């Protein structure tokens, strides 16, 4: 299982749909995608992780890196995730306090805080 990535724009938000496994091998592709979006001026990102089967600390590192980049432009990075096994990794690393995590893309797009 490789990593699949697709993007879609909704108003001023850019949705990044991620599928497959985010690990030490595939995480650089996600990093490239996030860097490219920020370089192209997309500063409000919603990363939809509903299609993610596996996430490790390398993937967490890429998401934290993405958050740092968008914050440098007063942007935001929101996650969409309902999978308990993925949410658990955010909880044990304390990152639930760092990322706003939503139950649907619609909810993430509507969020403004």
């Amino acid at each position, binding site marked *: 299982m490789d990593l699949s990535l697709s993007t879609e724009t909704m108003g001023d938000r850019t949705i990044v749909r991620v599928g497959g*496994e985010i*690990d*030490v*091998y595939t995480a650089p592709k996600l990093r490239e995608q996030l860097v490219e979006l920020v370089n192209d001026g997309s500063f409000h990102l919603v990363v939809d992780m509903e299609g993610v089967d*596996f996430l*490790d*600390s*390398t993937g*967490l*590192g890429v998401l934290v890196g993405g958050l740092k980049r968008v914050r440098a432009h007063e942007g935001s990075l929101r996650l969409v995730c309902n999978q308990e*096994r993925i949410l658990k*990794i955010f909880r*044990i*690393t304390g990152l639930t306090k760092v990322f706003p995590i939503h139950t649907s893309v619609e909810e993430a797009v509507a969020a403004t805080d």
Partner: protein
Amino acid sequence: MATVELRFSALPEHVRTARLVAAAVARRAGVDEAVLDEVRLAVGEACSRAVGLHQNGGISAPVKVLLIEEEKQFSIEVGDEAPHAASGGRAPGDTPGDTDAETEEDEMGLAVISGLVDDVEVSAGESGGSIRMRWPIVPPAGLLD
């Protein structure tokens, strides 16, 4: 001898193979299904860390994974050959470039492992380090009677 021993070139693309093999052997050994996701993640973290240590240290030796089935527990030991400074600091010869980022990733990997696995030992010496993790084996229901 380990139940299954795996050696792989220190390349990121092989970490997935190690995860799959570890989960398959753990399942066969009788580790609870509900814990297999944790086994998969923990062994992936340990292998990713070892791959990083070998790549950063220019070490050509393979990463070694021992999967050991015992009567009441299942152990996984992931060994690297990276020389670790006794104080836990950076070893000489490490590339200074991305030191902070590498250290952060290394620490995040260890944080995930210690958050996931109750029984874990991390050791490091001049000739390499290892992470040993253990999980209880659930006896088959039929054997309890």
